[in-house]
């Protein structure tokens, strides 16, 4: 393992963060979650910029949690990039080599090499204030990579960019990380970005890891209605009542949409927990389709908007009458959006065999006192 974070606890005022995971060399982990969930705090703790209350951090087998930030040899790209505005691009990139008292010729060579790799040779004599957003990004990456760190930490570095540039930089980062066979942790709250960059994803909420795995694994088992909604993994309907079904081994589930569905008992992972918490029905996108083509029972949904992306991928933004403040997106695949009028209702058929009854609220993957929960998903190798 390249990075091992064990039983980590960080406390900042009334906020506390718990983390426990490991990351193999050359893989990219994305920390995903809403603002304030602790993604950046976790990243800063790994970099040595945040004091930890307990736990261990190992990099390439060596324990680093006792080391100051400057001794950890970790590359960090900050959200605001934190370029040294008073230094030229050349000196920004060569900074980590300069503070390590490397030979001037070596610094020059290395800076030139990185500048060529990042296509910023013509900018070396400029100051950061004279660069565009994309150029600043490249400089920040080049600077973090100059001393060949064992681990790269990227704290939402793309958040300030406009959409096309963000997409371009995403490809660029992925390429650089892959070419350099770099181990990296990328922080974002953008699901699309996470899916695009990640080998595996850790979803965080309120200082806890609440989901972990590849996107396919999370789709198969989101663990909570909240996570499925947050990542738009499928349709999540509130459950108002669960009773044993007429057929043996089934459950009758009444949803907030006013539909009663018959589900196999296996659809509920932990029925005792569901009775305590608010329950919901998770219908993976692959288990549902419009216009009754799945053949199973259906629910009615209202078309809010046709969404057509520049790449001509058509989607419908839908809401479920009776379920407040919940919208989800449904891909139309190759079908034309023209036959679906905005404001009209459509029938969505559901394959109940693939549905899951989940607790709406996520539970932490780490048990009190530290360590992963027994049922926490371990990511499969990609």
């Amino acid at each position: 393992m390249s990075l091992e974070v064990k039983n980590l606890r960080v406390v900042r005022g009334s906020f506390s963060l718990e983390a426990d995971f490991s990351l193999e060399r050359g893989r990219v982990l994305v920390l995903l979650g809403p603002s304030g969930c602790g993604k950046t705090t976790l990243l800063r703790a790994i970099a040595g910029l945040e004091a930890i209350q307990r736990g261990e951090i190992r990099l390439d087998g060596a324990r680093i949690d006792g080391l100051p930030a400057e001794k950890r040899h970790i590359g960090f790209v900050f959200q605001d990039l934190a370029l040294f505005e008073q230094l030229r691009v050349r000196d920004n990139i060569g900074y980590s080599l300069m503070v390590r008292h490397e030979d001037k010729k070596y610094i020059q060579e290395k800076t030139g090499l990185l500048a060529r790799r990042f296509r910023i040779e013509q900018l070396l004599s400029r100051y950061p204030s004279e660069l565009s957003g994309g150029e600043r990004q490249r400089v920040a990456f080049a600077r973090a990579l100059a001393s060949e760190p064992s681990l790269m930490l990227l704290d939402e570095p793309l958040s300030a960019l406009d959409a096309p540039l963000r997409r371009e930089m995403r490809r660029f980062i992925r390429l650089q990380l892959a070419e350099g066979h770099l181990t990296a942790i990328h922080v974002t709250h953008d699901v699309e970005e996470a899916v695009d960059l990640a080998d595996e994803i850790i979803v965080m909420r309120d200082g806890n890891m609440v989901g972990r795995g590849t996107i396919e694994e999370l789709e198969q088992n989101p663990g909570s209605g909240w996570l499925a909604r947050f990542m738009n993994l499928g349709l999540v309907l509130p459950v108002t009542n669960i009773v044993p079904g007429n057929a043996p081994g089934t459950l009758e589930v009444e949803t907030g949409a006013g539909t009663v569905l018959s589900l196999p008992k296996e659809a509920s992972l932990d029925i005792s927990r569901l009775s305590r918490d608010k329950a919901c029905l998770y219908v993976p996108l692959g288990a549902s389709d419009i216009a009754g083509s799945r053949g199973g029972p259906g629910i009615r949904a209202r078309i809010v908007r046709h969404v057509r992306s520049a790449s001509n991928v058509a989607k419908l933004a839908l809401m479920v009458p009776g379920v407040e403040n919940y919208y989800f997106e449904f891909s139309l695949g190759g079908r034309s959006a023209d036959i679906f009028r905005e404001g009209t209702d459509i029938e969505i058929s559901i394959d109940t065999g693939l549905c899951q009854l989940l607790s709406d609220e996520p539970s932490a993957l780490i048990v009190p006192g530290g360590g992963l929960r027994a049922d926490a998903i371990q990511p499969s190798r990609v």
Partner: protein
Amino acid sequence: MTRRTSILLYGALCVILIFSMSPLAAFSKIALENARGGAGLSEPPATFLSTIMRSLRFTVLQSLASTALAVAIGLPGAWFAARFRFAGRKALLALAAVPFCFPPILVILAFILYYGREGLLSSILSLFFGPRKQYQGFLYSFWGLIMVHAFYNFPIAVHQISALWIRIPDTQMEAAKTLGAGKLRAFRTGTLPWLLPGIAQASGLIFLYCFFSFTTVLVFGGRAGATIEVEIYHALRYQSNYALALAFSVVETLCALLGILMLTRIQGRTRKSLRDFGRTRELASPKGIQLFFIIMYGIFIVLFFIGPLLSIVIEAFKVPSSMGGTTKFGFGNFTTLIRGFQAPLLGAILSTVRLSGLAAVLATVAGVIAGLALFFAEKANKNGVVPKLIEVLQWLPMAVSSAIFAYGWLFLSTDRVASIALVAAQAVIAWPFVSRALYASLRAIDPRVREAAKTLGASPFRAFMTVELRTILPSIAAAAAFAFSITAGDVNVPLMLGMGEVETLPLLLYRLTAAYRFNEACAAGLVLGLMTGLVFLLKEKVIDVA
């Protein structure tokens, strides 16, 4: 710019020009006539030049040393205030109002009482270092002057530097650390470049205040030397040599303008830093060694800065016995000043309120005209003549000796009535504070708010009356209160004019101090301190104006 706006702007500019420049022109005319009439520069040019150089050298040296010490005392406080949450943090920042709201004469009195040979500190020191007679005191020396200036001005450094520091994010320093830099190098790379403009700005401001220091040098610098401002006073009061005063004043103004030019450049950089960073950081709770240093700093400030100010309160109520009996505490000093010989206190209070009130009203009117003119002129054309000229005029009171303004107005007034000259000169000194405060608050209004009012149907005038005026009124009120505070506490102009016809509170305080009637001086000082310190009630607004 419409024709009507142009006429209004140029009209406003004329008013400000006449108000600011006429006393200077009047003084220059008399001084030049004086010189032509043979009563001018009586000394040979070489001697005159060496006098100026000696005085300039002393002025610059004491200003540099005072600034260095003030910043050295202020820097730790700025760091604590920018990083940590602790009891007394707000009080530490509020001390920035002291140099502006508490007249120098009051602080001088406090320092004499506390640091003087018979002062409280020497009594404490004698317990550790032997009998009091061995402690000679250093108050009336060069270093005494430096110490008084430093303690008087260090809160400016705390306030200005911390205001910038609290906005400097840690990310650059952290970036340097993740790239392998040690703590000191990370600070040098990630924080210092952004902090330096703030330090330079505070230093520049303190330097200018010390450069123009008058009363403090007059009292404490006697043996060590005289600043240019004191030389001007001597030329005017004891030699009636207006030409010599003008020559000193020109040198002083040239130096001050150079300083102001540098200061405005630095301020531009500081403003840019503030714009870049914006949000203030979250304060941390100090732990361990940090808490220890904060406590030590607090003790230091209380002992050496608050202590002298508190000693005024103690001494005001200490009634010395006339026949060697025990000292009592009570209102005896106040009674003497109200009912005793000449009973000067009530008269002094009334004349201070009357004269300073008038000066503050005049300064507010002029300041509002200038502030509005500057704002609208800049909106019409940022690089036009009007905004540039008003900017320069705003700096004038910081670049020209108040004595020249005072005598200028004296020469302009019929029958040379000193009280008229006093009011006008103090108004000239105070109006830039009002115009700056007004201009800053006008600039702070989000233009989108104005635009929103317009889209909702308000005419430009109605939008101004309903949206902007409500926002700027508190600033105008705070600036007017501040103008009253600095004019009420001003002893420079009355001393320069050598007023005998009216007794203001600072003058009474100065005379009582000169007559070694310290306890009565403290009683008068307490009244003055309460009067000028009232603006503290307006808290941050006043400090911002300052």
